[in-house]
């Protein structure tokens, strides 16, 4: 009777987790932990990023040479890279959350998950390309 139905419930839960893991291999709580950590992480790196921009007059900081100089500093480049990764993960996961809440068909949910992962990788790749190339620039 009861123990049976509890067991049933357990089985169902197993199925549920299995079904979920097909798509995203992480539990929602882990995803959200990542969301929070990337959020807070982004706070620090973005703060440094902005500080760096403010040590010289704003316009100067935008001049091509200065920018490239920054990029050539390996630490700064790494900083930029981490901003890129942290915000991409945080931001696109945020988007995933919003989109998941919009519609609940299986196709949509799968689509959202795939789209978000692809976009995340895409933007990270694209930004990394900039960083690497700019890092390799030789100033003539």
């Amino acid at each position, binding site marked *: 009777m009861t123990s049976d139905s509890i067991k049933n419930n357990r089985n169902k839960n197993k199925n549920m987790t299995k079904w979920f893991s097909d798509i*995203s291999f992480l539990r929602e*709580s882990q995803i959200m932990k990542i969301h929070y950590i990337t959020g807070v992480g982004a706070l620090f790196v973005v703060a440094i990023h902005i500080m760096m921009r403010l040590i010289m007059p704003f316009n100067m900081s935008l001049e091509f040479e200065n920018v490239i100089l920054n990029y050539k500093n390996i630490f700064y480049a790494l900083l930029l890279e981490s901003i890129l990764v942290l915000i991409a993960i945080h931001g696109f996961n945020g988007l995933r959350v919003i989109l*998941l*809440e919009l519609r*609940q068909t299986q196709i949509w*949910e799968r689509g959202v998950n795939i789209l978000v992962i692809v976009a995340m990788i895409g933007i990270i790749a694209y930004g990394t390309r900039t960083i690497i190339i700019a890092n390799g620039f030789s100033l003539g």
Partner: protein
Amino acid sequence: MKIFKKDKTKKITNERSLEIERERSNKSTSSSSSSNQKSKKLRIFRINAVQNPNDVPHFDEFQVPVKRWTTVLDALLDAKSYQDSSIGIRYSCRMASCGSCGMKINGIPRLACYTKISDLDTNTITCEPLPNFPYIRDLVTDFSQFFAHHRSVMPFIQNKKADIPDVNELSEYEQSPQDLDKFLQFSYCIKCGLCYSACPTVATDLKFPGPQALSQAYRYYADSRDSDKSNRLKVIDTSHGIWRCHFAGSCSNVCPKGVDPALGIQLLRSHLLGISNSEKKIAKLQDRSNNNSYREELEEEEEEEEK
């Protein structure tokens, strides 16, 4: 909640305590004037969605007599009894303990039997069905999905000793009043669905269990008599589970019973994140079947009867 609009009927959380004051002033101002009845206009949302799924809703207006203590439910029933008996409305206890009569009154989800017309400073009272529940008819909405969500969080004590099949066994749990206080608040949910209709996530997410169900999950989680903690957490830790609450707080703002579902949800989440330090102790089972004299007496009597 009055923030931008100047509508006085909007509920203001931090002004709730003023309610009592208002109560008193209402009483003193109108104590002599109960005979000179006022009358107010009631606008009621009309639809018959079961008969015709594409029915276009409209509003009907009724003039109803109002006294100091007249609640919106009284007014609705007055209109139903003497003006238009086809008004669809769900009600039962008329004392805010059964949760039937949730509806949107002047734009905010409330219990009709718990809202006095004299508290609403408008002359026209607009009643609409609760949003986020499918229409049935007029003010009546379909709760089946809401109840299903409640069921999905396993709202019952899971414990090997939960059932005592033997009638002669008298075993009692000892639970301290402090342990009781941890969940008591959440157990006074009357399942009225107001929170469910106010929550922005529920507004679009069909699979989100909603504040009511999640706070019940916490209610059983925090109960020291329950022993199946990890499984409980697993059930709600899904992509449409507890994480789809963004602490919009509306649920707690509209809850008529002080359940504060938002608090329950966030606390449950702290357990999920593993950062809560309040540990659970299983309540102590005290077996009283030994020192129980009258059972023996009963058995003796039965024996005598057999003879």
